């Protein structure tokens, strides 16, 4: 079944917030550098994506993202990729997140992007943790627990307050 008819954000006028997010790469890089200890165990090639969410329907967004039709419009994401010399901030376009081999995908609404942007020079990860808890930032996991553990994700996930082990609580 194909997810057709939903408009991905690249077809919408990008909000000023989203525009700002993608243009603030130096600030994102500085943030990653300040928090390098969170990523020090991560394997090279580990990759996290952050994109803008349009509308309230998280599931619809996710399904649209992961639809496999060849003519899906491209989506633009902010990426954090682990290289030999640490995490690098960048932008990427893709028709399907799998093209980017993401390990985690964070999907943030405009309120979240505003908040993160305001704190980019300070501690946006703590802000992001609160936004995840409130549902302004949704996240999707593309790797198994073992793969994430082997790739050194525990500290980062923990910093965002994400339960590493699922359980009916």
């Amino acid at each position, binding site marked *: *079944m*194909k*997810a*057709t*008819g939903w408009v991905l954000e690249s077809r919408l006028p990008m909000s000023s917030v989203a525009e700002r997010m993608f243009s603030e790469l130096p600030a994102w890089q500085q943030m990653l550098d300040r928090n390098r*200890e969170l990523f020090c165990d991560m394997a090279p090639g580990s990759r996290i994506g952050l994109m803008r969410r349009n509308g*309230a*329907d*998280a*599931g*619809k967004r*996710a*399904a*649209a993202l*992961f*639809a*496999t039709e060849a003519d899906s419009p491209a989506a633009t994401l902010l990426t954090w990729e682990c290289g030999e010399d640490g995490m690098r901030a960048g932008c990427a376009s893709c028709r399907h997140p799998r093209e980017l081999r993401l390990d985690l*995908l964070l999907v943030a609404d405009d309120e979240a992007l505003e908040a993160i942007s305001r704190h980019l020079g300070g501690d946006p990860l703590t802000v992001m*943790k609160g936004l995840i*808890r*409130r*549902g302004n930032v*949704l*996240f*999707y*996991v*593309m*790797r*198994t*627990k073992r793969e*994430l553990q082997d790739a050194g*994700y525990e*500290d980062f*996930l*923990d910093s965002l*307050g*994400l*339960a*590493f*082990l*699922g*359980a*009916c*609580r």
Partner: protein
Amino acid sequence: MTRPGEAKLPHLFKPARFGGFTTPNSIKYGACCVSNYNTRDGFITPRELARMRVIAGTGCGLITNQGAYPDPLGEGKAYFRQIALFDDKFLPQFETIARYIHDAGAVAVQQILHAGRYGGIDIGYCVQPSEVPQTLPHFRPPREMTRDHIQDCIRQHADAARRAVKAGFDATEVTSFMGYLLASFNSRFTNQRSDEYGGSIENRGRFMRELIDAIKQATPENPLAIRLNGAELMDRWGGNTEDECFELMQQAVDSGVDMISVTVGWQEAPESSIGRDIAPGHWNHLAARAKRMFPDTPVAFGNRLPDPVMANDCIARGEFDYWEVCRPLLADPELVHKAAEDRLPEVRRCIGSLNCLSRLFRDLPYTCTMNPALGHEVEPEYQIRPAAVKKRIMVIGAGPAGMEFALTATRRGHAVTVFEKSEAIGGSLRAYAARDLARPEDLASVVAHYEVMAKKLGVEVRLDTEANAKLMRSLLHQFDVCVVASGARIDMDVYRAIEGHERLVSAQDVASGRVVPGARVVVIGAGKIGLTLAESIRKGGAEVTVVEAEKRIAGDVMPSFKWRHNSWVEELGIRALTSSRVVRITAEGVIVLNGKGAELQVAADTVIAATPRKSNQELFQEFEWTIDELHGCGDALVPRGLDAAIHEGYRLGVRI
């Protein structure tokens, strides 16, 4: 003849109807957890059969066997050793279980569990209505089901139901609890299809209705129960509202199900549903709503409802028809009998520790903090049998390890005397339980159980009696065995090198009330002891900072509960300095050195040492040449926690 407890809980013990069956009472044993006791390829083992024999004997009128996956590929298999029902080769052991249940006078239900989004544990992918990835890292990447795949899946369910009936089960059950396949079709979050199986709630419920119809056609004489969420707790992800949940229940009832079992929550829900931070009865309103909507359909309910008295009252008020209980019966398989015999104070309560689930999600067989014999029913070594040689045993310490040992050994015929230096049974647990932010009553119930049972079994407990060499000399040759269960203390010696260490107070002294903290508190150590104190003190209004040497807090907390402490620390505004250590203590506070080598001053009027813990092992050396047998258990060997204390006390008690 009516037993005294049955007269007090008449609604719980009245017969009830399920399909064409009359059950002897209104209690349903729920298939809450897959045990992981079975083989990797889905066969039921002797270990499982031994456990099920105990479950069959619990006295429940309706007993549900744990969920079996229905497909040969294993797409529905969520758990490492989940049982299978996709082929007749599995049937002999199912027949045995059905027979156990019937021999006990109960009605047998087999749950068919296709885990959907959480399945495919052996095959590296899972199947869902749409490719919506999970939000926890525990699971496999999703694949969307085609229409043909959906039809095959429904057929597999129907075949599994037919097999269950062939094996002797009276009824079957399908479940959407926790976000399994049925739930993922029903939910707005995970079902993004635009064919007849997705979109409107009518369409999203189509898979469920077709499933019900197929099973009903395959087994027309046998009732079908369905577990459906009254609340998904997935609002943040765009999950179903409560109204939508009940609309789906209506669809199920209209399709002819014979029972609605109301459940709560998904695996991925960011909120607690059954942990001990949820008050018992919190979700009862969901069952009550279902019962109002479906007066003619039996409703079963039991999420976070461990108390038979509450269950009886709910049934009396017409809020549901069956008390669906699982974990409380894992903790105490005698619960229903004790309720019937008016012996509720003797019940070992489920304390909601979720040790069972923590182990399940590490692919381990589940165990229970409160029931050391769970999972070991097949092993004679775990059974309480008369001792070949009756001994006189002294136990040092009336904490959980010592008391568990004392009760177990007494049951085997030994003469046991417990020596406790404080004024009460309970050890460290008594003090820390009172500080627990979740539910102090749950942890306190452990102590209460030991008090009740010590009295009932005639265990002599000498309080305010410190065991030392002088005492031992006075008791020479009066005992054959000494069990050191003296627990552990905070090791204050490790702080001697720190300037100002004399200002430190021990976590135990604060927990017990011997020391009252001030308005600005630093707690050294953010393990379970430090966090319990920090949260409690913060709630009392003080400013609190925890200093932890490791990168993360809650290192020794049960996996299923780490997230809770993390969120409490944040919600309460407790400052957490990780990768840090205290290097100096002054009248004004502490100097902390962090992982980057920077010093930080934290103002404090009270500095509490909550780590490290050191076993109180001195008595091993003191008593070695004074008694025939010398043993140890619990924290006196290695500081761990309640689970190890109770289990070790029991294991020693059945062995001596």
